[in-house]
């Protein structure tokens, strides 16, 4: 059971190993807080869709399974949209079009099709959590690199008198702007993927 959880974090990490769900990973990773918000949204949708798909696996007719999965996923995405807009409007605004686009995040439909419709509810939950957390960690890593180098800051939640923004001394005054832009995102993920390739190969040896 635990294996279903841990596999998503490293060995089958959705971003770095399977290379799925890239659009949001790059689109929202300009700030650490965006990565946290996006990760939470994806975990919620993944959990919801995995639970319902595995519960309904005998009810959903084989022929219309993909439309059914899409309806289930889209419902959870809409819930995330509505709740986020109501309770975290600033975050909702900065994630923009990528919130509704969780629907077409290949990870979610992929897990429904490849895992949840053949497994029990419990292992589907573990699978969803593992994949979701793996996705979030990958997003956090990319966002951390991009924000700290590209803007010289790390943006978290504002708590009390703490504004939520940590400024990194030298970098904040001389940020390497390209990391915040589209080009930087692609370069960062390219080098990270190369690192993961190198590391997995070394471990295999």
């Amino acid at each position: 059971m635990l294996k279903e959880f841990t596999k998503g974090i490293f060995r089958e990490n959705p971003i770095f190993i399977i290379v799925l769900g890239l659009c949001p990973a790059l689109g929202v990773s300009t700030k650490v807080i965006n990565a946290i918000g996006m990760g939470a949204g994806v975990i919620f949708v993944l959990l919801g869709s995995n639970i319902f798909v595995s519960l309904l696996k005998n009810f959903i007719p084989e022929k219309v399974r993909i439309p059914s999965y899409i309806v289930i996923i889209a419902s959870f995405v809409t819930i995330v949209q509505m709740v986020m807009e109501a309770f975290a409007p600033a975050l909702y605004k900065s994630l923009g079009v990528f919130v509704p686009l969780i629907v077409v995040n290949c990870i979610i439909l992929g897990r429904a099709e490849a895992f949840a419709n053949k497994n029990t509810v419990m292992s589907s939950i573990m699978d969803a959590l593992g994949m979701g957390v793996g996705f979030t960690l990958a997003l956090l890593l990319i966002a951390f690199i991009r924000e700290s180098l590209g803007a010289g800051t790390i943006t978290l939640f504002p708590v009390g008198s703490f504004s939520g923004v940590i400024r990194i001394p030298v970098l904040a005054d001389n940020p390497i702007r390209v990391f915040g832009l589209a080009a930087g995102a692609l370069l960062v993920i390219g080098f990270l993927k190369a690192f993961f390739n190198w590391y997995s190969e070394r471990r295999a040896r």
Partner: protein
Amino acid sequence: MNDILRIGSKLALICAVAAISLGLVNAVTEPKINQMREQKLMNALKQVAVGMEVGKYKKVADNPVVKGYYPLRDNSGKQKGYIFDLVGMGYGGDLDIIAGVSTKGKILSVVMMNDQETPGLGKEAENPEYMKKYIGTGEISPVPVRKSQLSQEEADAITGASITFMGIGKALEAASDFAKKEGVE
């Protein structure tokens, strides 16, 4: 045939359940979202009104930039200016701007309500400090719409985001002209 009917009704059932549950969630969140939006607008209006009384919203139909305005009155009820509801052209899309302008066309205050600008560059316009370069212009000195009209320091600060700067400037210029032409409504 029977099979198609069975599959179709199952799919329809899933859709119906989904739509109903979304409707329920929407019923909870929608008032909250509207309330937050209204709150945001009220806060912005209060900030822009600088202590004056805000009148009733009037739509403007034939202006590409000025969507509408609220008249601004002092305690005695005399009109001193306008709060304009403006839409400018930014780098990433429309800029929704709220600005207080005197009847003589002087920019009194500016708040960015909504934008899709680049974080770290154009997004800086959400910062109240950013708007200082426009305030006080419009009556005697022109509203800055080009970098050459700024001080060296201000021009440096908007490097890489001049489209945002020009978009806001042009919207405010239109507002200032509108106020000058209209005078007291």
